[in-house]
């Protein structure tokens, strides 16, 4: 896997792009918890060159201040894809990145040969409200994100520095580590908030019918952030879509059941 920084609009954005594997390119858009080269991406890269940009505001990707709303974000991504010379390729998006993927597929349906959305945000149903990931406790967040609350990933969330409730001494090493964590969290979550606060609905339901290419919706059966009933709602609006619900998985379904999820995506791409 290689990581490089790509300039968009003459440096207005500097975007980290992770790239790995071999074969035709595939675009992956990460979710609210950020981007790392996980076992899921490793597996996906067996048959594809996976290209995974880090959304401005997450990690070292800059330029989030130029993005005011979903409209700005979509045009930023179109510029990035132009910069990378990407066209006619499969698109995979998870969580917040699933929402972005749906928007991109709707505005330029011909650019993407297939679309896979895993636990995407973007719709709102009053009868099935999406969890308030900005206000729930870290323990509740861990349980909503992972079906197995005892998994190391879930425990890491539940036991992350609780320092948002404590004063931090910047002059100590421990204080600096906590501040680093808090700054990263503030940057990434306030970026997510641009597209999700206070209700994660930016009108996607009016555009989703334009996603006409072969597509699938993937959902963890235990998703505690976005209730799995949303899977059918996405599926119903995207004309050639199938819905896949994965047992023993929650919002982080792609990391929890990477083998199953990659198999489903491969089947979509190979048709």
């Amino acid at each position, binding site marked *: 896997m290689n990581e490089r920084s790509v300039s968009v609009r003459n440096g207005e954005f500097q975007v980290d792009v992770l790239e790995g594997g071999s074969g035709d390119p595939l675009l992956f858009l990460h979710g609210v918890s950020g981007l790392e080269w996980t076992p899921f991406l490793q597996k996906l890269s067996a048959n594809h060159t996976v290209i995974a940009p880090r959304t401005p505001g997450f990690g070292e990707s800059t330029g989030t201040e130029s993005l005011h709303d979903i409209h700005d974000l979509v045009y930023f991504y179109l510029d990035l894809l132009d910069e990378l010379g990407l066209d006619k390729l499969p698109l995979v998006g998870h969580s917040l990145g699933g929402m972005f993927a749906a928007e991109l597929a709707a505005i330029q349906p011909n650019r993407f040969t297939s679309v896979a959305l895993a636990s995407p945000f973007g719709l709102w149903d009053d009868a099935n409200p999406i969890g308030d990931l900005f*206000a729930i406790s870290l323990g509740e967040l861990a349980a909503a994100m992972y079906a197995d609350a005892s998994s190391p990933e879930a425990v890491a969330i539940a036991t992350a520095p609780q320092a948002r409730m404590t004063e931090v001494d*910047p002059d100590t090493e421990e204080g600096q580590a906590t501040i680093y964590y808090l700054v990263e969290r503030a940057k990434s979550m306030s970026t997510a*908030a641009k597209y999700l606060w206070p209700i994660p609905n930016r009108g996607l339901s009016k555009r989703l019918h334009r996603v006409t290419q072969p597509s699938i919706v993937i959902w963890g059966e235990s998703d505690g952030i976005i209730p799995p009933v949303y899977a059918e709602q996405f599926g119903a609006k995207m004309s050639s879509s199938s819905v896949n619900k994965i047992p023993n998985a929650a919002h982080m379904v792609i990391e929890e059941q990477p083998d199953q999820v990659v198999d489903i995506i491969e089947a979509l791409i190979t048709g």
Partner: protein
Amino acid sequence: MKLEMFHLCPYRDLPADFREKNRSVWVDPPTSLFDAEIANRTYNETLDELKYGAEMGYDGICVNEHHQNAYGLMPSPNLMASVMARESKDVAIIVMGNSIALYDPPIRVAEEFAMLDCISGGRLVAGFPVGSAMDTAFGYGSNPSQLREKYAEAEELILRAWEEDEVFSFDGKYTQLRYVNIWPRPMQNPRPPIWVPGAGSIETWNTCVDKGHLYAYLSYSGYKRGKTVMDGFWKVANAAGIDNPYHAGFLQLVCIADSEQELQDKYAAHTEYFFNKMLHIYPGFADPPGYRTIDTIKAGLMSQTTSFGRAGTNEQTFDELREAGNVVAGTPKQVTEQLEHVIKDLRIGHLMLLNQFGSIPHELAKENIRRTAQEVVPNLRHIWSEYEDHWWPQNAVVREATTT
């Protein structure tokens, strides 16, 4: 030195088991606990207490804005200030304030404050809070990471609406107006003084220093913990060559009695009600992403609301709250001495006192107001007489310093 009476207009009748049965007094307290009969009494007693504070000799009366909050029943402090503009004759009417980032268009605030200034005859202080996370992000659905940017734009628009001599256009990111031309305009020329209630963020200190607004640290954590925040403000201010104490204000809970036993009998339960029930706030509402700026996090500073979230962990007793400085309680002489220390230690020219807080009933509130206004306030007014108060409304009273 100016001393003003602050009122939160709290709902005094939460059930005894509120804390055990509910997660928060703010944002989502159960609708079923609200009783309009109680609210009717609360509003009218609050107005009576504010009027009484003015009559008993305070320099100003303060009201503030909260949303979906049982300890602060004034989503529109302007309605209360409007009554007081008529009911009082000479004191400053201090609206602390209107959360200018929440109004669309924010010109509404420019208009209502101008009305209040005209009704009161030029006695208005215009408060511009950024607003707590509970009020803004959760109560009003405002994206916390965009709040400060919206605030800055709203402030620019309101000041221009007050100060410019001609109709103008405003092309902002959040507000676009083809014709800005408010009727009425403020009576004070060019505008009322601006006080910014802050909670310890670096950006608010910088704004107040750069723009010359008064910085008021409004917390319930008292003068001992307030010292850190006020020292932070003064460090920034001193670096800019500012040392006038009237540039800064502070809030303090006060209760007066003649003996230790009387204090315990009259105020202990009401104080504990305030801190243990009314500040029982769900921590998840306290620190939404982007509410604290990156610079504030890097400095290791909490927002006021973050400390609210933390305060919810243990119940505190009256004695502990006195010891920690959350409440200043004693005889008039003891309270005068303590407040003189607070004023000088924090270097503040405006001290806002809460005489009614928690479940303090009307008659006891009036007693506390009268005794503080008559037996404490006059003995503190002489402080800082060598400085000029540039943050006082042009037509509000300036009372003589006297000693009783």
